């Protein structure tokens, strides 16, 4: 091979560096969640995430976030899985209204519902007390795990704990009569928001629609009780934490049916002496097989929940037969 003159080499290096720089810039610019708010009621928009697991391709956008534009500012319900999502959500809101964001509610302390907090002013962030302590205690490890699951989309994301604790009760903002409902079961604190002015119920992750529920912090009996309560709220439109928006209680019943089946299956398996690998191999009933990511979610739930059922089945004190 002929040796290249130094000048040519230098030029080539420059071109290479330039190209690399641009490629990196472009790949950052490529990271667009493609958020498109859908108007579901007067003043009310929802951004529906994909019914998938967290991945490098969806960047964690598997969650529903929402906002209500009131006369006195915008109320945001959940801030998404990353700083980038939060910023793009803020821009989506700005394209629809000039009103500033007045309140950002984190429905619970799972990463896809609060890791966009950085994009919003600190004094707008609010959550139930147990959600605040959940974000404070587990935010760091949940954030780290999201980096592993969603990669570069998470760049620059740090957990921000809301400073403002809210409690259950009515909250009127800019003509919207909101009812904050404090429940639990999906986690130790699950905030539900009913907008009495529009009839929209923001159910957070107490309700999943056509996507298998997640259970890392679940207590199934409490969750079932919460679902009973939600069904009585008299909503017109239901925004689940994951999956499409609905006009009836179908997603509540679907979530309840899955949780009941899960509870019965795990209890029976533990009472019959199943090893955890055998429980994971159980064939799912046909009615649930159409739920998105149900196989993966089922195995995760077995891993999360089965040890407690097992313990009960093995322990004389807990009243095993």
């Amino acid at each position, binding site marked *: 091979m002929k040796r290249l003159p130094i000048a040519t080499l230098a030029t080539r290096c420059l071109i290479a560096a330039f190209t690399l720089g641009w490629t990196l810039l472009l790949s950052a610019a490529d990271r667009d969640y493609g958020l498109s708010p859908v108007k579901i009621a007067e003043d009310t928009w929802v951004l529906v995430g994909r019914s998938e697991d967290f991945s490098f391709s969806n960047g964690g956008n598997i969650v529903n976030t929402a906002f209500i534009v009131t006369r006195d500012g915008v109320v945001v319900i959940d801030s998404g899985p990353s700083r980038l999502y939060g910023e793009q959500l803020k821009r989506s809101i700005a394209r629809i209204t000039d009103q500033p964001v007045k309140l950002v509610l984190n429905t619970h302390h799972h990463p896809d519902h609060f890791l966009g907090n950085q994009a919003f002013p600190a004094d707008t962030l609010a959550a139930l007390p147990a959600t605040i302590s959940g974000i404070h205690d587990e935010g760091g490890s949940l954030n780290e795990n999201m980096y592993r699951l969603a990669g570069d989309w998470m760049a620059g994301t740090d957990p921000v704990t809301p400073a403002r604790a809210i409690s259950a009760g009515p909250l009127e903002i800019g003509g919207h009569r909101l009812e904050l409902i404090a429940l639990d079961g999906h986690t130790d604190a699950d905030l539900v928001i009913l907008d009495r002015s529009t009839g929209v119920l923001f159910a957070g992750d107490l309700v999943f629609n056509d996507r298998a529920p997640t259970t890392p912090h679940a207590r199934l009996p409490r969750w079932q009780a919460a679902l009973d309560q939600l069904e009585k709220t008299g909503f017109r439109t239901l925004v689940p934490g994951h999956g499409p928006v609905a006009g009836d209680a179908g997603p509540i019943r679907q979530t309840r049916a899955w949780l009941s089946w899960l509870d019965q299956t795990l209890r029976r398996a533990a009472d019959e002496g199943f090893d955890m690998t055998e429980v994971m191999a159980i064939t799912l009933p046909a009615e649930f097989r159409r739920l998105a990511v149900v196989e993966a979610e089922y195995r995760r739930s077995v891993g999360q929940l089965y040890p407690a059922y097992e*313990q009960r089945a093995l322990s004389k004190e807990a009243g095993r037969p």
Partner: protein
Amino acid sequence: MKIAAIAAVLLACACSLGQAAAPAERRTDPLDSPRWADMRKEMFPAGARVVFDERVRVTAPLTAENAMNVPVSVDAGALGDVQEVLVFADFNPIVRIVRFEPAGAHPGLGFRIKLQQSTPVRAAARTADGSWHVGGAWVNTAGGGCTLPSTGSGSPEWQKRLGEVSSRVWERKEGGERIRLRIIHPIDTGLAAGIPAFFLQDLLLADNTGRPLMRIEGFEPIAENPVFTVDIPAGRSATAYRVSGRDNNGNAISAAIEK
């Protein structure tokens, strides 16, 4: 050319020999792990016959969400005459997980492990002729299970209950019985900063007359508060059982397993 031809003939011989021995056996790693050559050297005597054998079944989730508690079942029942089974994970910082001798029990064991990263999990069963039969499965995980402290090490609760055993016996439809037992133990790997290794070292499962059914030698990657599943063939079922043993600090474990 000549060398290649000889190699091909030798290879053909080796393959047909392998096939003659047992159709389920093969010489190349079905899990295609870059660590296999090291595993072969580390885990088995140099002269030992080691084959991959699908009759040794390892069941584990393909993707394990919680690297601190990955369920694994080993079943070498299709082999017959199993003397001991060694379970290990190629890419774990502590490779050995558990070794058991099914002295009367079915040659299988259910348990849970900690994994540091995605890895093959393998079970090698030694038959009476001295051959090792290796089965395995890949487990994908985000990992971190080995370098995190146990929940127990952060709470004083376990100290009061250390070594406590809860258990239950089931009759099996196919005959014989199943024993499941859970032992309260934090099981620390020694890889989390400032927390020394602390794990179950020896367990003996016997019937109430003292006849041994299963010896279990545990290593650091067993999950916290371990749960074991052991099947007892019809011929060895007893009116009651007993588990005894100790951890690496000499704390004794001793409990009756009643029906």
